[in-house]
């Protein structure tokens, strides 16, 4: 997505300058340093390029979403999590004809705004042991605690645990999880 990235970075930098001026946006050149800094710390860059998740995001065109302004909270299943899916399930999802299903699955792992583990924890406490989280895909997840870990329950009766929380990025935060969540 090179052209997209460059455009994103140029406009990002241009907007940063314009915000200071309080004027309407004009074309302003971005310094190479500004471009690099902005580009390296996005959610997109926080997902290993050779991972199954990265491949799935790219197929669905969502890699650009995670390189944009966001912010989003990404629940990122690792490769082992994808391997727990029924045999062939991921391959089927990666086919062009399954694009809508793939997008639905991935957007179920993207939440609006920046939600840290401590935010979830507070909401769980306030909710007497659980809280519901809205996803960009439209369904919801239920979050509970098991010991110190946050556990997410999906619409299909499955669960995944947050194994590594709060990877803060320039446009959101990533929590790594050990399962793939299913909307239904």
């Amino acid at each position, binding site marked *: 997505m090179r052209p997209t990235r460059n455009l994103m970075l140029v406009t990002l930098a241009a907007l940063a300058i314009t915000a200071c001026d309080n004027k309407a946006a004009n074309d302003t050149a971005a310094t190479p340093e500004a471009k690099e800094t902005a580009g390296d710390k996005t959610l997109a860059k926080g997902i290993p390029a050779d991972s199954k998740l990265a491949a799935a995001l790219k197929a669905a065109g969502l890699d*650009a979403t995670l390189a944009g302004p966001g912010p989003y909270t990404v629940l990122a299943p690792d490769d082992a999590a994808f391997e727990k899916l029924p045999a062939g399930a991921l391959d089927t999802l990666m086919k062009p004809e399954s694009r809508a299903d793939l997008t639905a699955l991935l957007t179920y792992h993207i939440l609006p705004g920046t939600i840290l583990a401590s935010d979830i924890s507070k909401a769980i406490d306030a909710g007497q042991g659980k809280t519901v989280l809205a996803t960009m895909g439209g369904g919801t997840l239920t979050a509970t605690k098991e010991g110190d870990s946050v556990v997410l329950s999906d619409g299909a009766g499955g669960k995944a645990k947050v194994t590594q929380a709060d990877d803060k990025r320039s446009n959101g935060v990533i929590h790594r999880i050990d399962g793939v969540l299913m909307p239904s």
Partner: protein
Amino acid sequence: MRNWMLAASAAALAITAPALAERGGHGGGHGGGKDRSAQVERGGGKVKGQADKGRGHAKSEANRGGGKARFSQNVDRGGDRGPNRGHNKAERDDHRSAKAVRVERRDDEGRGRGRDDVRVVRMDDDRRRDAVRVRDFDDDDGFVRRWGQHGFARGFVDGCPPGLAKKDNGCLPPGQAKKWVGTVLPTAFRTSSLTGPYRDWYRDDDRYLYRMGPDGLIYRVNRADNLIDALIPSYLNDYGYYPVGMAYPSPYNFYNVPVQYSSYWPDDDDYYYRYGNGAIYQVDPRTSMIRSIVALLAGDLAVGQRLPLGYNTYNVPLDYRAQYYDTPDAWYRYNDGYIYQVDPTTQLITAVIRALV
């Protein structure tokens, strides 16, 4: 109903009439798209040299409906807990010097009063009215309510928004809608204000009005000639994102990026941006193929509505947490480029506080 249909047919014949031709140059008209291939309209904020390139409403400096500039000013929260909350809105709107001074937080959901020029902040009144209406909503839903094809899932009769159904104007079947482009907006819809989050996404400005039409389409009306010049699909279908590789639907192929993102994603020679079905897509200008999804829009929060299920958790972006944090008096929740303020007691969303992009 028959009268306007006849008028619409007549107007449809004149769809490429001079009224739609772009004005060119500064504050260039939308109509430039008509001179090009297909029905693609170019819009956006970048000046690319040639004066004859059509530019959407997002471009103009003085009266842009969107843009980060107006929100980058400091919205001082110091004194705004309690009765002063309304002041934030005055600051938000001060760039639109010509008309609207403040924003009215109406919750009338399509039964709008059509006062599109002068709007008045009425925080407390709105909240009282909202409290009455919110009892219609059922909190026990297992899913976050989405602004679907006909607004919230409840309250619609035969697929039409309630205001229209009551007036017995009927609804247009889909596909008929594109024939409206280039026609005069029928009187019935002139006062139908946008519902839910769309009121913060598409704001009337000096050049355009946005009105909710039948079947959940938003009509953009050019103030100068009172003609509909663009349609925007307002439905947020569950899981209904357009897939990458599909052609962006031509009836909606106009620059329609919501205002809070329009300066971030203007059209240019290499990239077009189109909103639809809950996302902003990057579209190839020549083939109209969707190349990627650049943003996902939840469309869950709107002033006057109750905080939906799934938003109990604080989700304000890190850079804004020092300024907007939950207290017993006010909660803050982020959605679609805006931070919203919530009354914790009533769970009502009481204000749009600021835009981020």
